[in-house]
């Protein structure tokens, strides 16, 4: 006679099936992320808050509590106020420009043409190239002596060598330069976002709009753009957050100059807190990013949630 059910072997150890338990597995999988965020984001953030209410400098590492005095100092400083304005201008202008370029780029890349796949791959380059390399290339484009743009303009007879624009030397133009570079860096990302959004719009909806009498512009701005707005908003959050905190282009290209015309929050915080050693004021400057970013992120997320209902 054959026994119908063999007795199931007892687990060798009580921990043998530990990872099969959902709550244990959840904890094991999520803990590296929490650890990472806590150690590399949370601790420095708390440290920055502490520095910003202390009188800590590299030369006098005291932990003396001074309340909000550092913030009041910073707000009274006209250089900081200018930096704050620069940061807003830099962030919103470059993201807007990148978004517009991304929209048109996406529409061009939706048209069928020979070699479209190659162009689609190449267009990612500005985003993929390390920013240090890219900025060096742009430095030659805007250089005071060897500017490629000026060389072209002079060769075409549009300007003379004497009145050729000094791109990085005059305050307005220098700001324009870093805005253009950042937009150039951002627009491949915007293209990807727009491409994903536009291809997700059902053809029936676009056809319906066409038959309902909508021409190209109305189809675009009353149907397609509103429909892809949530995904564009996500892209924009990324763009704004990264740009608002970024200092690489300014650091590599203009060093905040001429005369602080292109200084942004991240750069100013670095200059004051690290380069000059006034850690407390540097921390206070950097912390001014926080409320702005919070407002942007919360506002955008609320907007997206409202759209989805």
């Amino acid at each position, binding site marked *: 006679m054959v026994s119908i059910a063999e007795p199931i072997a007892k687990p060798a150890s009580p921990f043998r099936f530990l990872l099969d338990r959902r709550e244990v597995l959840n904890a094991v999988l999520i803990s590296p992320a929490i650890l990472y965020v806590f150690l590399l984001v949370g601790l420095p953030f708390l440290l920055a808050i502490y520095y910003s209410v202390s009188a800590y400098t590299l030369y006098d590492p005291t932990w003396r509590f001074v309340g909000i005095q550092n913030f009041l100092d910073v707000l009274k400083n006209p250089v900081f106020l200018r930096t704050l304005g620069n940061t807003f201008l830099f962030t919103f202008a470059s993201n807007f420009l990148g978004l517009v370029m991304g929209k048109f780029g996406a529409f061009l890349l939706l048209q069928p043409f020979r070699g479209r796949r190659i162009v689609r791959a190449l267009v990612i380059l500005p985003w993929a190239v390390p920013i240090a390399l890219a900025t060096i290339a742009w430095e030659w484009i805007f250089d005071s002596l060897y500017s490629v743009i000026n060389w072209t303009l002079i060769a075409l007879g549009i300007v003379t060598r004497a009145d050729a624009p000094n791109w990085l030397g005059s305050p307005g133009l220098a700001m324009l330069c870093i805005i253009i570079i950042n937009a150039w860096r951002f627009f491949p990302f915007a293209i990807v976002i727009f491409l994903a959004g536009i291809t997700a719009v059902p053809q029936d909806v676009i056809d319906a709009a066409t038959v*309902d009498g*909508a021409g190209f512009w*109305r189809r675009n701005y009353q149907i397609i753009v509103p429909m892809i707005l949530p995904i564009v908003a996500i892209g924009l959050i990324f763009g704004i957050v990264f740009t608002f905190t970024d200092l690489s282009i300014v650091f590599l290209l203009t060093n905040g100059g001429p005369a602080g015309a292109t200084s942004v929050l991240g750069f100013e915080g670095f200059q004051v807190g690290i380069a000059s050693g006034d850690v407390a004021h540097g921390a206070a400057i950097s912390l001014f990013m926080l409320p702005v970013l919070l407002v942007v992120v919360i506002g955008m997320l609320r907007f997206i949630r409202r759209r989805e209902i």
Partner: protein
Amino acid sequence: MSAVLTRDIVKKFGDVPAVNGISLTVPDGEFMVLLGPSGCGKTTFLRIICGLEQQTSGDLLIGGNIVNDLPPRARGVAMMFQSYGLYPHYTVRKNIAFPLRTQRVPGAEINKKVEWASQLFGISHLLERRPRQLSGGERQRVALARALVREPTALLLDEPLSNLDAKLRASARLEIKQFQQRVGVTTIYVTHDQVEAMGMGDRIAVIDHGRVRQVGTPGEIYDDPADRFVATFVGTPPMNIVAKNGGYLGFRPENFLPREMIEGSAVAEFSFRVDRSEYLGSERIVYGVLEGFDPNQIVTAKLPGAHVAEESIRPGEWHAFAVRNNALRFFDKDGNRTSRH
């Protein structure tokens, strides 16, 4: 006057003709159904009428005017799509108003017309909702209201019921037909479903491989199919076709009955070997072959279920069957109908 008239419309994608010379006249107020299998070109033809596709050659007249080169918005036709194509970011009210806004109709008049259209379809209480908050049937009504709100010369419907489940489909079919009769708008309705075509169409155009095979009332299509394609595409089960004298002989399964069920002598008699029998409640479908014909040609008989007992028809048995002479159809060797009787 004909609302829509086409003359020899051809549409080629590359070298392949999707529409291969369709000439069709749809009079004012008619419900015309374009019926055909998938890929027969019926949807392409509909998209040519509304201007989403440009024909390779041929003329298209809407309301008596040649509109070959007019953009969709200038043609005065409305179209309802398979998935309805509602604008998800607009409320029902703005969805219905959209075709009027594109025509720059004044706001007060837009409101009036939206009210009218929403009352016509009983969706006045849904005006402030968004499409995703609606059921399938409600979405269809919104799509119809949006199509009709600007009172088009012709309404084009592209398989509008294929997104609904079977139960809803029957009531939606009725609803579309009723509103069409009430409003009297010229309608061109594309479907691959013969039940929809037979039940709704004033006339049916059967299309295959980009050509119209036959245009006629549902009765004409069913009783007098113009060729073998129409005969076997319409009808469930399709018409029986057997080879005879270099041509073909056709008869509907419901006309193929046991000899004793037919009175009179004006009949064609057959010896029928039963292979299989299916009881479907209201009817019984019997499959088999005829003596003296191709033994691979399956012939079906549709018998009234209540009248034929299970025991009287068993697989393997030979029975005397017959078809009334006036129910026989003849086709030549190319499959075209030769004579009626």
